[in-house]
């Protein structure tokens, strides 16, 4: 215990003791211990040494080389206000210039960033953040508590359209407590607050952001290791290394993000012919091609990202729970995984919490029962079957449509005639939360409770199913306040059960995630949330 230290130098939170006992008894694994203790402000170095991990996650076998230009194929989308962005790809651009209060690495462990330490109160309602006094904006201004207050207040303002408004709905007050310190007061205890501050919509913009026009690419002030040199939607964005960066300098001199359209085959062709070094994403359709190419490294991971076929509980005919249940019972989750994603993933239980998330509770999946589905439909007044439409946009690739087509066949067996309304990707996002039955891709969140908080809490900005349940909200509040990973997972049982019982979604499987880089790219890890921080990447010298 005495080896454990907080980043702030203050005494350990009382929950750390429980965590220590659990990791010693084997109730939680060492990584869970690291994650949970990091939330409470314990330094990762001391925690990993304590748990006998000796910083293995951070060990490097090769000396990084400085210099060079990295070319990254991804879409260059329209970008104005980072807190409103709904594309993670766009966030990876501003991630080079804008920094966050905390940093969550590819192993889901939270580290200090613009905030060098944090100390939660016993009830996890009051959080004191100590900002790094070295941090400076690219225009020369110091990074101050005023910046933090400006950002958080803007996220949660009554007219805010940001998804942060729901994610930080517990924030009651943000105040300056010193030249470099900020206090965030919450209405309920939230143990994962530091982790949440690394959500892609949470970068710190300058306190004069709105005053200066509220358009980041037009006025790209940031605290980060790179400076935006050019930004052309649909073409490319170029970032140059900043010589005057306040922290550890980046290795690369330049990063060129190149828009190669939406066809991943083109991206792979460009990678194979040495025109680019990294592709942002590939799907199952390109997996075989990718594996067959020499001189590229294929990265594979199992993040908690998924397709959710959600029904709006206040729209006909989905306002009848019997209809929703019938759809869930008729759906064959395993077949969707096997056919649409060639079995490369894990079956879902219609609860939108992944087995890879530490707060997952292994609920029994809904067993397929077509007869029962038919009976429920008859009871709901659809003896002769039911006509419904599912809207989708293939936002991540054709496998979305493949999944929907399997569902179509599954539902047909129960007499449900499902029509697919396939839109171009960019036309799906304007209606994603409006259509009664839609197939939406949900990106990874470190915790299941974070996703559920965004997607299913009553009245949430991103609550696309319009699901509203006081019991669910209360159970979620309870789970979110628990630090102890084992207890947290136990608390999630009720949350997951309510969601499953209400049959809001068909969430068939958790697909594996793929991407590829050229052999010379070093230290590039597939971040489960697709948050690619580039300052630690380097290119091997030829």
């Amino acid at each position: 215990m005495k080896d454990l230290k907080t980043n702030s130098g203050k005494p350990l939170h009382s929950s750390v003791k429980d965590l220590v006992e659990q990791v010693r008894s084997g109730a939680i694994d060492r990584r869970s211990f690291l994650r949970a203790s990091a939330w409470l402000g314990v330094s990762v170095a001391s925690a990993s040494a304590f748990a006998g991990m000796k910083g293995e996650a951070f060990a490097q076998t090769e000396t990084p080389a400085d210099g060079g230009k990295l070319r990254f194929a991804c879409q260059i989308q329209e970008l104005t206000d980072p807190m409103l962005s709904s594309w993670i790809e766009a966030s990876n651009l501003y991630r080079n210039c804008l920094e966050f209060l905390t940093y969550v690495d590819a192993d889901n462990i939270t580290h200090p960033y613009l905030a060098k330490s944090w100390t939660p109160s016993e009830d996890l309602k009051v959080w004191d953040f100590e900002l790094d006094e070295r941090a400076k904006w690219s225009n020369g201004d110091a990074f101050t508590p005023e910046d933090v207050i400006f950002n958080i207040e803007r996220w949660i303002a009554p007219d805010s359209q940001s998804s942060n408004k729901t994610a930080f709905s517990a924030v009651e007050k943000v105040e300056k407590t010193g030249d470099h310190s900020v206090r965030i007061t919450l209405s309920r205890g939230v143990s994962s607050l530091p982790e949440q501050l690394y959500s892609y919509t949470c970068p710190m913009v300058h306190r004069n952001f709105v005053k200066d026009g509220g358009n980041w690419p037009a006025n790209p002030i940031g605290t980060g290791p790179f400076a935006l040199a050019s930004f052309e939607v649909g073409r490319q964005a170029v970032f140059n290394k900043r010589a005057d960066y306040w922290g550890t300098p980046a290795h690369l001199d330049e990063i060129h993000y190149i828009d190669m359209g939406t066809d991943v085959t083109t991206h792979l062709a460009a990678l194979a012919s040495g025109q680019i070094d990294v592709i942002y994403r590939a799907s199952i359709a390109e997996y075989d091609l990718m594996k067959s190419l020499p001189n590229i490294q294929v990265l594979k991971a199992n993040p908690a990202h998924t397709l959710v076929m959600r029904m709006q509980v206040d729209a006909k005919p989905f306002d009848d729970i019997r209809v929703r249940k019938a759809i869930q019972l008729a759906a064959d989750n395993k077949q969707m995984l096997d056919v649409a994603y060639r079995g490369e993933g894990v079956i879902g239980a219609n609860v939108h919490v992944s087995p890879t998330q530490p707060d997952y509770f292994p609920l029994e999946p809904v067993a397929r029962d077509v007869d029962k589905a038919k009976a429920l439909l008859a009871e709901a007044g659809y003896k002769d079957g039911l006509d419904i439409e599912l809207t989708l946009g293939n936002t991540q690739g054709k496998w979305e449509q493949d999944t929907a087509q399997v569902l179509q066949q599954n539902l047909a067996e129960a007499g449900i005639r499902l029509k697919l309304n396939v839109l171009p990707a960019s036309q799906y996002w304007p209606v994603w939360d409006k259509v009664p039955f839609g197939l939406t891709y949900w990106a990874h969140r470190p915790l299941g409770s974070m996703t559920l908080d965004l997607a299913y809490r009553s009245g949430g900005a991103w609550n696309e199913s319009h699901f509203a349940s006081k019991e669910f909200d209360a159970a979620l509040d309870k789970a979110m306040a628990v630090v102890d990973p084992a207890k947290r997972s136990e608390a999630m049982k009720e949350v997951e059960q309510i969601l499953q019982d209400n049959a809001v979604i068909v969430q068939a499987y958790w697909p594996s995630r793929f991407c590829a880089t050229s052999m010379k790219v070093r230290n590039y890890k597939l971040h489960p949330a697709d948050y690619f921080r580039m300052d630690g990447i380097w290119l091997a010298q030829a």
Partner: protein
Amino acid sequence: MTLILFIVRKLGGAAAAMLTVSFLVYLALEVNVEDVAVKVLGQFSTDAQRAAWLTANGYDDPFFIRYGRWLWSFVTGNWGDSTYYRAPVIDLVPDRLAASGILAGGALLVMVPVGLLAGILAGMRPGSLIDRAVSLLSIVTTSIPDFASAVFLSAVFVFWLNWLPGASTMLSGFSLSEMVLPVLVLAFYSTGYLARVTRASMVEVMGTHYIRTARLKGASPARIVWRHALRNALITPVTVIMLQLPWLLSGVIVVEVFYAYKGFGTLLYDAALNSDIRLVEACAMVSVLVVVATQILSDIAYGWLNPRVSLLEATMGNK
């Protein structure tokens, strides 16, 4: 004088065509006012913001007044701003059009000599080995759609042989190697088509009496082809080439998108996908302009090649 009359008349027709298209485009894109506000301001805008924007931009006026105003702005060069690219539309179009022009020019450079030569060689001796080979090849190339030949050529030259770059973004300046694949794909289809048309035309001309006379006179085969057959045999192929021009400029979306070539085709594609109304309108109008302009050029070239076709008659109607 005849030519001027002809051009004036053609321009009048072109203006009428553009007016019709402009009305249809405007009707399709801007009849639903609510949609326009959402597309311009984005999905995160509030109802109040949308209403204010609509009022400020004159969307409370009747449809025909809005159409007239839009048309006038368009004619006077005020094409509005692109919501996706966040830039004035008029700044975006010329560069992209030039990029597509280069691609189309490249395709023409391959297609015209190869297609004509193959067609002429095949048509000189119908039934010969060359004729059969050319006919077979041109049937094969015209039967493969461009999206398939793009994949096929990439598989061979990029993934297998590793000779050529897989994407043609041209971001670091003009690159000849990046041009090869898109040009080949475009030329692949058109060359076969042109060879077939030229062959048919050549066979027809070679069977005429005046060619037989020339042969009987003892003229060499080269002289017969060069002096007597070619000019007449070229009338149809030239029409085909002129008809390919608008296709090369605005119909190359598949090839441009596949190779990530930043031309006019990808501009129109991205504009349509992102509901960028002003840009779609401008692209549609420019496409029509390209089509009518090439038609006029094609008519002039046709008249030059075939003096029996009188431009005056074409102008006044053949009565």
